[in-house]
């Protein structure tokens, strides 16, 4: 547990540089931020939509030129308000927060579901030069919701990008976990990175354990303070905002009564994952 400098990471405002529509429900927002530009894959930031809300978002990209981006799925009032924002409008940023994925060498498998693909794309960019093989399994409900397919294909190559859709409109029909068993039987991977719906990640981690492969998963919870104080995001003995959001297989095992099972609502009550 490292010390934290509260004063070093105060809210600052910046303007939206660009907005890109990625799918019918997802938009990417890019802005300049001197601090977040040093973010590592897996870290998140708190995004202030003035007068509306402040929400946690995974960092999709941080470039040398100072631009930082996040992918935002329209799921509620706050994300709807953010989707209505245009280039030039003011937003606020705190962060980056949390730990990051560990960059590893060797044969890498990434499993991303929905907007969980965002931090993995960032990771894939950083891992590409280290990996001897990089296979990316991406899952979505339907073809139109498959995110960042072109960029991923550029990084992994067409052969190592495995797409799944629940309705079968593209790639393999099923969930992101559908092709995993056969992939893991065919190839000996050194590490699996996953981010997406928690039930999916639970399944991925069970498979990783069965095949004896190291795993890191990035979790999402209700966040308020983002600095490890309020307790809104706890999973087992861990605080997702400070001890995570990236957890190893053994940490997830310690928290198995909650990982993929339950979360805390706004009142702090434990409720089943939706």
């Amino acid at each position, binding site marked *: *547990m*490292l*010390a*934290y*400098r*509260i*004063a070093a*990471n*105060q*809210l600052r*405002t910046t303007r939206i540089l660009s907005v890109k529509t990625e799918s019918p429900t997802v938009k990417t927002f890019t802005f300049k931020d001197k601090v977040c530009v040093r973010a590592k894959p897996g870290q998140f930031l*708190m995004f*202030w939509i*003035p*007068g509306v*809300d*402040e*929400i946690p978002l995974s960092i999709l990209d941080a470039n040398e030129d100072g631009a930082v981006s996040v992918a935002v799925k329209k799921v509620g009032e706050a994300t709807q308000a953010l989707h209505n924002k245009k280039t030039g409008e*003011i937003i*606020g940023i*705190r962060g980056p927060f949390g730990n990051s994925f560990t960059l590893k060498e060797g044969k890498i498998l990434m499993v991303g579901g929905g907007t969980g693909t965002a931090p993995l794309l960032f990771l894939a960019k950083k891992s590409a030069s280290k990996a001897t093989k990089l296979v990316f399994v991406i899952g979505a409900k339907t073809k139109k919701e498959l995110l960042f397919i072109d960029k991923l294909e550029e990084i992994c190559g067409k052969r190592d990008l495995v797409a799944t859709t629940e309705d079968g409109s593209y790639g393999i029909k099923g969930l992101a976990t559908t092709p995993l068993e056969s992939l893991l039987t065919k190839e000996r991977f050194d590490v699996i990175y996953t981010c997406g719906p928690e039930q999916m990640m639970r399944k991925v981690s069970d498979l990783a354990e069965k095949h004896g492969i190291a795993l890191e998963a990035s979790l999402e919870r209700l*966040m*308020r*303070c*983002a*600095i*490890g*104080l*309020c*307790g*809104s995001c*706890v999973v*087992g*003995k861990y*605080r997702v905002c*400070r001890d995570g959001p990236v957890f190893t297989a053994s940490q997830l095992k310690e928290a198995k009564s909650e990982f993929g099972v339950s979360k*805390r*609502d*706004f*009142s*702090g*009550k*434990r409720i089943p994952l939706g």
Partner: protein
Amino acid sequence: METVRGEESLSNSRLSVSLAGLRLANPTMLASGILGYATETLERIVEGGAGAVVTKSVGITPREGYANPTIVQTNCGLINAMGLPNPGIDEFVKEIHEAKNTLNVPLIVSVYGFSTEEYAKVAKKAMNAGADAVELNVSCPHVKETGSEIGQNPKILTEVVEKVKAVVDKPVFVKLSPNVTSIAETAEAAVKAGADAITAINTVKAMAIDTETAMPILSNKIGGLSGPAIKPIAIRCVYEIYEHVKVPIIGCGGITNWRDAVEFLLAGATAVQIGTAVALKGPNVFKIVAQGIDAYLKKKGFRSVNEIVGLSHRS
């Protein structure tokens, strides 16, 4: 096992204190509002060395709290307006049960209410579920009709404390707000009504405005300041209270290291609570502070932490 796990230096008698009948292996406690929903989180705080823990404030019915932003990071501490989120006492009793069976340190449940009756009902349920004491939150600065609105009015405060004391048979702590004209008078009222200990202080009413948008940052606009900035205020409050009441005082506000803690003890506190520093230093902050207090006592030749409580009042 009464002592902090795996810490030999913390298990000596020099650090142990008695707080209104509760035995603490060392005088550091987790302040209310920090983590404190879940037993597993509290367990980690105890592993980090806390001599006792105080839960989040709990009320009669569930509360979702305010929309984000609920926190502002500043140069000198944090401003928060969480809005007392909690699952309500009927849900929380499960957590109290579990915590009581798991933790090897005193468990204090923080209680708030929107009426005298609510305070009493929640306190009673918390005690029945296994709480070793309750701490009445009459000092939260950012929720209307409870918290500091109770604590700022000596008449209502008296009613609340008396009513709670009438229905419970374990210690009742009262956590006070610095946002009053005379905290010593408030403390006197609480003690006269039966308070077994006084916790001082809760956060200092505060605000932050974003210059670009000209908007208050917190969704509730006003919140409470915690952290190093409020320590001198808290020290003064503890010092004044010590001169007016006989019950133990729990010092709270901006403690991040042993020297801060010792300062509170010298001002008159029997124990200290730590909150914001859990972010600044991590959950082991309790161990670090307690070890520091111990080293200070040893160096100065004191046999017990009790010998320095209120020592600054000699001069």
